[in-house]
């Protein structure tokens, strides 16, 4: 592995100060939390920080009540501890289900909530330093365009980048309208989840809207009443321990048989979790039906474009959305151990 300087601050201010050097677009300081993605990328020579700021000693590991009555997930709480936290299990089963659909038990034990948000794409060309990649090396081109792009975007891509965000947890957080709390050289601020990750545009090296030196401190999940009608449906090339080709998080309520407060977020299809409020509005106030679900799916996939090897994902996503809505309405969420899709 490359050589780097290592610092281990014990408070947030020293951590963000330590990271407030280096220049855009490829700053050379990295925060180290669980390490499951960063250390891997350093071994691949994709990430080449000159300084690693180990944030594991910062007091950011708690899961506690948020001021608005929701839940505050500490950035350094592990994905596993989050999924099995009694409040997460009881009040946000969609979030627990999505976390448990991702990675392996070992990785979920090490990976943190902040790190889950900030993990990089698993685009093969991003990882392979022998190929061009605008995300890894701005201006070098995109190997995935016209290449093998089975796991790549069908929505929101740009001529510079068709990578997808690989997280399952983030798809649930998008559906639940989470808010990301960050701290940086200019103080603290809150970022609505929809604004946290970004589309690649002509700056694909920027995965999110964090500024240099800013650190995710926690994630707030607002109060919601989605314990009865939700599902996280993940479709992938093997039954476990694989990234999503398409995933769908659905949370909704039923009032006298009518749909309300419907949320639908897609994973594996874009550079960020994909939500289309207009499609959700189409469903609110309506009586659930298969036909209606397909209308919503069509609205979500409006403008979807295949890149060759991933053309199948448009039809797969259409069916997955309709199936996930049916699962959520029926109150039969997808099991993450018995993989049969009902």
């Amino acid at each position, binding site marked *: 592995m490359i050589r780097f300087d290592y610092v281990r601050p014990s408070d947030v201010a020293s951590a963000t100060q330590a990271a407030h050097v280096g220049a855009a677009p490829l700053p050379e300081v990295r925060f180290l939390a669980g390490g499951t993605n960063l250390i891997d990328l350093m071994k691949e020579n994709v990430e080449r920080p000159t300084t690693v700021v180990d944030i594991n000693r910062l007091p950011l590991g708690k899961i506690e009540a948020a001021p608005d009555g929701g839940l505050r997930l500490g950035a350094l709480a592990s994905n596993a501890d989050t999924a099995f936290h009694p409040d997460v299990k009881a009040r946000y089963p969609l979030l627990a289900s999505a976390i448990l659909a991702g990675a392996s038990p*070992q990785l979920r034990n090490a990976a943190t909530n902040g790190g889950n948000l900030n993990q990089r794409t698993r685009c093969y060309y991003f990882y392979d330093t022998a190929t061009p990649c605008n995300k890894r090396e701005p201006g070098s081109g995109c190997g995935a365009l016209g290449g093998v792009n089975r796991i790549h975007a069908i929505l929101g891509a740009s001529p510079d980048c068709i990578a997808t965000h690989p997280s399952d947890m983030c798809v649930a957080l998008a559906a639940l309208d989470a808010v990301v709390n960050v701290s940086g050289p200019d103080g603290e601020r809150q970022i609505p989840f929809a604004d946290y990750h970004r589309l690649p545009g002509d700056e694909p090296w920027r995965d999110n809207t964090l500024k240099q030196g800013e650190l995710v401190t926690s994630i707030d999940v607002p109060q919601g009443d989605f314990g009865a009608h939700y599902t996280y449906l993940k479709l992938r090339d093997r039954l476990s321990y694989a990234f999503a080709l398409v995933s769908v998080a659905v949370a909704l309520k039923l009032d006298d048989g009518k749909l309300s407060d419907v949320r639908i977020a897609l994973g594996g299809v874009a550079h960020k979790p994909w939500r289309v409020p207009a499609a959700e509005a189409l469903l609110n106030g309506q009586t659930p039906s298969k036909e209606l679900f397909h209308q919503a799916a069509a609205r979500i996939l409006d403008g979807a474009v295949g890149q060759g090897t991933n053309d199948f994902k448009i039809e797969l996503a259409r069916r997955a959305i309709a199936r996930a809505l049916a699962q959520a309405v029926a109150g039969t969420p997808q099991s993450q151990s018995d993989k049969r899709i009902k």
Partner: protein
Amino acid sequence: MNTIISPPASASNGAQVIPISLDINGQQHNLQVEPFVTLLDLLRERLQLTGAKKGCDHGQCGACTVIVDGKRINSCLKLAVSLDGASVTTIEGIGTETKLHPLQQAFMDHDAFQCGYCTPGQICSAKALLDEGHCKSRADVREWMSGNLCRCGAYNNITDAVMEVLEKEGAKT
């Protein structure tokens, strides 16, 4: 408890060297490590604990699985310096040749390996699986062992072995 003080790492390459202390299988180790040393490399190359294996070195195969502060992790993706003060259990700390852990006996009884390269990681993972207490069924065990690959394809026998111990332990409580 014995305290083992390892010789300081060579700093001739100019790399930073950081003092850390780790409890490994019940023994306290005070070590000097460079920041880029992973827990797996520390165990295998510095401490001659070669039970944990380097399969992929990228967190994909699970052959390097060890238990840190009660949780199973991929030791290849963890910088040793970031674990200062932690407790580590490797396969060398689970059972002995004369007193096997029930999982080790079950793996032998069920022929749960061919080449054996993935086995230390499988057993560390299975031990943590039992302690976690999330698994009730065969489908659960398959899902919760999915972070450990076996290129020989002994998956059915591995599941049989873990199920046997899970059912025995369940019968005890």
